[in-house]
């Protein structure tokens, strides 16, 4: 027996994160991911996934890059590289955006937060060094870029996350989705945002490395909180219809093809001035030739990344993420198909080990988002 798909890649030079010993003590099974040893699971992906949907799951996402831009005109400078309206971002607000290359292809997807005195940016761990290089090359010299590698990042996700976090940091309960604030915990300056990548309500908490273990322990001492590994993080985000960079998005794919048109702000659509604007605005206007779609899979056979998609005998596309969806109770997938096949309800087939598996193009998310957008709402 052998795995045909490896969770990790080359393990040479793999680094450890500040919570490494904590994960191992909690029974985490460590794999190499984005250059770090990270927990793929603790008690099991299925149980951890379902726990997060019903309670609160604690994820260590300290492999992600936490950056900060400061200096006069930082927002305008960043707008030269991303299609979001960063200038309009009010203090304490955050926005999903995309780092684009000259052709409009996606170099990374990221979160930008107006922290008042600086712009916080969180980028994917797997490409953070490339992102830093790109930002340093293209931002003006009077904009300062800091890599906050003395900070870790935790995500607490699930319907009970707010109750758990508010016991440690009462201000958390006052935030709504995509809102950020600074706070203090045990004398440490921390940043909290009501955000995440599971489709559930939840928070992301940035803390100094030296505070991580005690904070994780304080959360996991609560009945509703358990540590959750990368495996469930992947199945949760897949059900939420959220793309994973390097799989569902890459440098060849533009935001419209990636079904991320919402990330191109209204003012930027009118004014352009971001990389690849001609291609992207053309696709917004006339439609992109291909589009990222969700797929509901008939039967129980998982359809995974790399599976070819067919309409009859014609190959029409490829699956970029897929697997068994614990909350759906069936396999689901994401992939790219031509525009005329992107309508929900379209019947196509995926090829798995020479067999055809029937799939139906489906609207995403597969599991409804449960973000808290209004206080008391």
């Amino acid at each position, binding site marked *: *027996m*052998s*795995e*045909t*798909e*490896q*969770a990790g890649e080359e393990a040479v030079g793999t680094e450890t994160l500040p919570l490494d010993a904590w994960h191992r003590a909690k029974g985490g099974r460590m794999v190499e991911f984005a250059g770090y040893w990270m927990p*793929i*699971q603790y008690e*099991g*992906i*299925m*149980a951890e*996934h379902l726990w997060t949907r019903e309670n609160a799951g604690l994820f260590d996402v300290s492999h992600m890059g936490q950056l900060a831009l400061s200096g006069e005109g930082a927002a305008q400078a960043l707008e030269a590289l991303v299609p979001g309206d960063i200038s309009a971002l009010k203090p304490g607000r955050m926005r999903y955006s995309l780092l684009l290359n000259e052709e409009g292809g996606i170099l990374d997807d990221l979160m930008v937060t107006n922290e008042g005195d600086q712009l916080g940016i969180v980028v994917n761990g797997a490409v953070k060094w490339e992102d830093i290089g790109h930002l340093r090359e293209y931002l003006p010299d009077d904009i300062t870029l800091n890599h906050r590698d003395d900070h870790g990042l935790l995500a607490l996700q699930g319907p009970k996350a707010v109750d758990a976090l508010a016991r440690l940091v009462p201000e958390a309960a006052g935030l709504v989705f995509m809102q950020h604030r600074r706070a203090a915990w045990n004398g440490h300056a921390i940043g909290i945002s009501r955000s995440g990548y599971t489709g559930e309500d939840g928070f992301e908490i940035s803390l100094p490395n030296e505070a991580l273990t005690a904070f994780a322990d304080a959360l996991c001492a609560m009945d509703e909180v358990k540590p959750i590994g990368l*495996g469930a993080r*992947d*199945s949760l985000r897949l059900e939420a219809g959220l793309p994973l960079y390097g799989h569902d998005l890459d440098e060849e794919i533009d935001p419209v093809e990636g079904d991320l048109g919402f990330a191109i702000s209204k003012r930027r659509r009118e004014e352009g001035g971001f990389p690849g604007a001609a291609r992207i605005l053309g696709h917004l206007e006339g439609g992109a030739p291909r589009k990222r779609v969700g797929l509901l899979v008939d039967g*129980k*056979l*998982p359809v*995974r990344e790399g599976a070819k998609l067919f309409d009859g005998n014609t190959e029409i596309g490829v699956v970029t993420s897929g*697997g*068994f969806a*614990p909350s759906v109770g069936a*396999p689901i997938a994401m992939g790219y198909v031509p525009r005329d096949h992107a309508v929900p309800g379209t019947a196509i087939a995926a090829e798995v*080990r020479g067999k055809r598996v029937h799939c139906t193009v489906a609207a995403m998310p597969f599991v409804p988002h449960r973000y808290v957008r209004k206080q008391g709402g």
Partner: protein
Amino acid sequence: MPRYYTEEHEWIDVDGDVATVGITDFAQSQLGDIVFVEVPDTGAELSAGGDAAVVESVKAASDVYAPVDGNVTEGNGQLEEDPALVNSDPEGEGWFFRMTLSDKSQLDGLMNADAYKAFIADL
């Protein structure tokens, strides 16, 4: 009824000229939650070390190899309905397939229970 083990974490129970094959408890614990099992068709010709079945966990697909040469006499149909049997009873109800033995001398190259236990302790 002697039971043999492979370095690829399959077990094989031999009863006369027919053998039952599955994956070990260690293997299922490494794979995690199993959501799909593809067993070989009856009559399929297997050769030692060749692909025989596929087991899919939440995170990945893994190949299961034939421990010896032979022909498949039966796949475990129960796994289609309840693939989690491989997690709950890997070395019993969660068997994968039954096969004939073309060359019993191939069993000599496999491990017994004690040898397998020592083998996984070193992993």
